[in-house]
């Protein structure tokens, strides 16, 4: 199972460059998730790894092997497509065994493999059915099964769950998380859904506009986003951004804006004092705010609740803060009323600052 390395990968369609030099090192058996908004170049990157798209510049390494001139079939990969790409005229068993049959493996071996994989994915009752006679979720499993039947060293997934309804998607996500513990392979998984990325990944690679924005473990990216894009993309509901000015007050550095003044924790303050500018963007996650009526000066802010969205154990409040909107996540049993102005405490480690021009984290 060779580790995969992308080196300055560039893709141009005619005169339009859609990938601007992707550098990425994936460790062995790592579950790597490429995540980003639609159109950012995730699928293109994956298809270049698969060999379905030509490479305009750069190189792909699998172990010591440069593979950019190899056919897909010589790259030792299996792939699950967004639309499943099942062979409509073959039944489930034939779909799953297609590649093994092409390799002219012994029939007994093929049968055993198909049976095992079907067993694992709960497809045994459907082996004789054609894809058209299956539900969306079952087709999705067949697509997985077809990839699993191959003994490829690397698995590529292109938004495999995006055509499923929300409930099924959650279920399949859990099964995938389970499967990746037992299947020791390199996995590269493309999605636009940050929840899938957070739950499945060993390493998340956030992409935007044909560039890698940041890569690292889910916790790293969630705790220390490198820029405003990553901060806003990961986490739901998304991070709040407020305009603020840095002011010194009694030896402390404060981020001050319309209707709030928050004291920066020492580490952040140390970095912020070195800045040549005073205007910053303050980032606050909805989950880092807490309803504390008597939060002290500099550690909390007053928000006027305008909408409350009940989502079960949690409620999401949309509040006014000066002329900006702030979302807050609270426990549903917290007694609040619409139109009230309440005081929320901010967890000090939940404060993020960004350069308003470059959007890089401070």
């Amino acid at each position, binding site marked *: 199972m060779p580790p995969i390395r992308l080196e300055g990968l560039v893709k141009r369609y005619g005169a339009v460059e859609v990938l601007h030099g992707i550098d990425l090192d994936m460790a062995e058996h790592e579950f790597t998730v490429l995540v980003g908004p639609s159109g950012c170049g995730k699928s293109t990157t994956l298809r270049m790894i698969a060999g*379905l798209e030509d490479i305009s510049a750069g190189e792909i390494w699998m172990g010591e092997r440069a593979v950019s001139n190899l056919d897909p079939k010589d790259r030792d990969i299996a792939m699950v497509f967004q639309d499943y790409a*099942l062979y409509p005229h073959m039944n489930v068993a034939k779909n799953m065994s297609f590649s093994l049959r092409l390799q002219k493996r012994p029939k007994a071996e093929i049968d055993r493999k198909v049976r095992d994989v079907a067993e694992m994915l709960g497809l045994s009752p459907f082996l004789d059915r054609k894809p058209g006679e299956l539900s969306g979720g079952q087709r999705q499993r067949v697509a997985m099964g077809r990839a699993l039947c*191959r003994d490829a060293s690397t698995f590529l997934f292109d938004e495999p769950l995006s055509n499923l309804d929300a409930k099924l998607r959650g279920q399949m996500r859990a099964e995938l998380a389970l499967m990746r513990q037992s299947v020791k392979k390199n996995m590269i998984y493309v999605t636009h859904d940050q929840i899938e990325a957070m739950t499945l990944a060993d390493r998340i690679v956030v992409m935007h506009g044909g560039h890698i924005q940041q890569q690292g473990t889910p916790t790293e990216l969630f705790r220390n986003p490198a820029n405003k894009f990553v901060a806003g993309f990961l986490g739901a509901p998304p991070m709040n951004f407020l305009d603020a000015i840095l002011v010194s007050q009694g030896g402390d550095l404060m981020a001050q804006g319309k209707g709030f003044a928050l004291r920066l924790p020492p580490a952040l303050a140390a970095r912020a004092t070195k800045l040549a500018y005073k205007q910053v963007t303050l980032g606050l996650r909805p989950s880092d705010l807490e309803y504390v009526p008597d939060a002290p000066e500099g550690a909390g802010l007053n928000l006027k609740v305008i909408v409350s969205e009940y989502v079960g154990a949690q409620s999401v409040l949309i509040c006014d803060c000066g002329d900006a909107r702030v979302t807050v996540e609270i426990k549903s049993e917290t007694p609040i009323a619409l139109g009230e102005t309440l005081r929320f405490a901010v967890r000090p480690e939940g404060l993020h600052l960004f350069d308003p021009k470059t959007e890089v984290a401070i």
Partner: protein
Amino acid sequence: MTRFSANRLTPYLFAAPAALVMLLALFYPIGYMIWGSFRAWDPSQSITETEFVGLANYARLLADPAFHESFWVTLVFAFSVVSVEMVLGVSLALLLDRKIRGMSLLRTLFILPMMIAPVVVGLVWRYMFHQSYGTINRMLEAVGLPKVDWLGQNPLLSVIIADVWQWTPFIFILSLAALQSLPRSALEAARIDGATTMQQIWHIKLPLMAPVLIVTLLLRLIDAFKVLEVILVLTGGGPGLQTEILALRIARTAREFRELGEAAAMSNMLLMLLMVLTLGMFAFTRWQEARARRLRFTKEEEG
């Protein structure tokens, strides 16, 4: 209540004029032909003056070696042109289904023969097949091969070549359209699964094109049974009866032998043959629709 029944009648009222035209323009001539096939009928007689002879016309045909010969020639012609055209047309489509500069021009050139009037095709090929100054023999000579007496010694082969030249493009464009509507991702999946170009064609492309190919084949077959102009101009059915296909024999029976009844009987037999083919085609599309419906149904069931 009245409104309700009027609403139910509306579609039939709209269809009525078309049905009437069809009755007059389609079934009347066919009925006339079937009626005529049971009578001894000279072109100078009106049908009311003719004598009813029962199945005599059919009986005579079944015993007539010239009819047998003609029937056989028609079968050989139809099945050979359609098989060659299918193989060539589909192969060309598979070959030209790629994104290369100038491909659209090439595709347009390929369908040119289909746009030429069959009579002209016959004339052009007659010239090309000419024993001494025909293009083909001159080319054979140029590369040092002996001349071939195309229309004299190999008349059936010659008309088959001309028909293949004219109608391969038909199969080509339909196959190309079918190819280009294949699910792209399934082909990509096959590439990743390790299928070579030939294996992709054999295991994925052809099976998925099959519905279109079968309909195309039937359409071509029906058409090939009725071919007339090219052969009329190229060989006139000769030498002897070697290229006298049914359509030509029908025309001759009616005009030269002045046996309208027998010609009608022959037409009826051709019609029945074509009906069997057409019913086959309908049965096939029916079966396909039923299958599609069943698939849709299972999908809807699952929400």
